[in-house]
């Protein structure tokens, strides 16, 4: 009973924060207009996902495979729609791709989980994304389009789970893979990550890592409810417009389940990305990935750092693999950070077109 009351109180508090954020920042708000048809296919263990369909633009060339875009850690599919006409999703539509934006389990659009009790709680781990959510998303898209294969584009963890699905579970319905800031082998943890690891004991009492409420509080009040050290891990502030930063916090910040947090922190501690039970070494199995892969990395990326992207590149079994390093010495406007690769000031001119060009060069191959 106490936990039920606690759950209700926490949910009420979060709702109040969102309401406060919406009220206080209504004038400065930047709504997102890009919207597609929504579906909520269910996984085999009963979790509803969200797939948002953005069909190809009229008059654009027809492409052979639908494209699934999968968000990363702490985020949801809205990431791909920020910047509106400059977004990767919009650029893919314009280039003729049938685009499907995926929300993995636990995201609000399919019904937020409960904190402690209820049909669904924050009880899942990254293994569940790999084993069930990716499978359900691909099945749904293939069923709706009649295609035999998909192209998978994943940012951060969204790319890591595709590596794991293909390399460790034998997934053969992904024909082309683009990973953006996705480490296959985890980088050596810096001070901020080690501090997070040292606090992971708190997960024993917390129902969830409450990222979203604090992000919303920051938007509502302007106060540093999300520590700058954490922001520095996620993007390079000099390369993200303030209104995009606000949209990221307002629209995409997502709570972190304990299972996700533990699996991630363990990976950052050990360097290898393994299943929760330790039975599957996803990093080691990168050698089993043999589809064409484009890896996109940013010089300032602290989560998919260049050394870990090099390690992934070298371990991949693919003969056709390309690594793009977004850094100033290669002519980019900035040394890109983790999130900048998607929503950086000039990502629509420097990053997205290279992804679309790579896909076009591989279309039908």
């Amino acid at each position, binding site marked *: 009973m106490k936990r039920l009351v606690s759950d209700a109180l926490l949910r009420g508090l979060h709702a109040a924060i969102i309401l406060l954020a919406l009220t206080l920042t209504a004038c400065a708000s930047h709504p997102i207009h890009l919207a597609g048809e929504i579906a909520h296919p269910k996984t085999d263990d009963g979790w509803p996902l969200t797939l948002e369909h953005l069909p190809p633009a009229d008059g654009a060339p027809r492409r052979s495979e639908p494209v699934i875009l999968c968000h990363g850690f702490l985020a949801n599919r809205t990431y791909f729609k920020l910047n509106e006409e400059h977004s990767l999703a919009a650029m893919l539509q314009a280039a003729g791709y049938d685009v499907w934006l995926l929300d993995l389990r636990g995201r609000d659009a399919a019904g937020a989980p409960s904190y402690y009790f209820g049909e669904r709680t924050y009880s899942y781990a990254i293994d569940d994304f790999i084993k069930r959510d990716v499978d359900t998303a691909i099945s749904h898209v293939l069923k709706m389009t009649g295609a035999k294969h998909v192209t998978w584009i994943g940012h951060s963890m969204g790319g890591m789970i595709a590596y794991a699905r293909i390399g460790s579970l034998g997934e053969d319905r992904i024909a082309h893979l683009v990973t953006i800031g996705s480490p296959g082998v985890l980088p050596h943890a*810096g001070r901020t990550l080690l501090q997070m690891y040292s606090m992971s004991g708190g997960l024993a009492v917390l129902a969830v890592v409450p990222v979203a409420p604090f992000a919303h509080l920051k938007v509502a009040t302007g106060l540093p409810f999300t520590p700058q*050290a954490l922001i*520095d891990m996620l993007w390079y502030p000099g390369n993200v417009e303030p209104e995009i930063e606000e949209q990221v916090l307002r629209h995409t910040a997502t709570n972190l389940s304990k299972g996700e947090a533990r699996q991630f922190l363990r990976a950052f501690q050990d360097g290898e990305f393994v299943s929760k039970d330790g039975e599957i070494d996803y990093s080691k199995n990168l050698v089993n990935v043999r589809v064409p892969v484009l890896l996109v990395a940013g010089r*300032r990326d*602290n989560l998919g750092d260049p*050394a870990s*992207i090099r390690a992934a590149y070298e371990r991949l079994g693919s003969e056709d693999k390309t*690594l793009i390093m977004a850094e100033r010495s290669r002519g980019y406007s900035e*040394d890109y950070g983790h999130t900048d690769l998607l929503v950086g000031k000039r990502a629509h001119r420097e990053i997205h077109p290279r992804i679309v060009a790579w896909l076009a060069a591989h279309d039908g191959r």
Partner: protein
Amino acid sequence: MAALLTAGCSGASSAVPKDARAVVGELPGPASTLFFPARWRPPRPRPPLVLVGPELLDARVLYDHEGALVPFLIDRGYPVLLVNAARGPFPDEFGSAGLVRLVEQMHERTGAKEIVVGGVGPGGRHALGLVDALERHRDGAPPVRVSKLFFLGTGLDYAYPDPFFARLDAEGLKGPDLRAQCKDPARRAVCKRMFRSSVRSSGYMDLLRFRAPTAPAPDLRFVADLLVPALFIVGKTDNVSPAESVVPVYRAYGTTARDVPKRYFIAGLENQLSQDYDELSLLLDISAESEVYPIIGAWLDG
């Protein structure tokens, strides 16, 4: 720093700092040495520190300005023997032969049985060869033990896709003297892009010196057998000696014995420093003295 840059503009490189007391040893080819005695004698004397490099930049970035690395080290009690590329890039075999002869001469003159070795910038990679030679007693290496090893902004494995030096080649910067080439107006834009830095100075081009001879990627598997405790510091935005050129060596280092102390440190925001450091700012930014060099100091003293 202004004096350093002015001297760099004039092309002079012979200004010897007042701390540097003597030139020691005979070295092959283009290298020279400067010796900086310790400014402080701790109760337990520090071993001499052989500092290798840089090659890409004028060696004065290490001692000729406030907050430089060499003054930091001699203030902590380490006598520093700086080996630098004075007249051209180090020859490929430098680490295994030339440096060994230098340590041998030092051993004969001073009787030193223990040294610390440091590498700075891409030229610092030769420190690996020196440590390997001393540990295996090859190339006639004297009985001198290396107690600690560190690297600061030193790229070690350039076999990553489209590496820095291959891009220099592709941009037409193929000769050994980078400064002369970057003075060519036709190449200035390329040089500015390849050697960008957060250090607010137009002096980077004038500080450039030599690039390593283009050679096949060396076989670095020997690092697994090394036993000397080693620290690897990388600037987060260093595109000359980037993280991907260091981490494979760091991961492999000392793995045969399994318990060799080693540390990898990214100089950047992810370690809550004030900035993401690059190749030049690791050596010239005033904040390096308070944020980065203490990591080296703690490693050497620990």
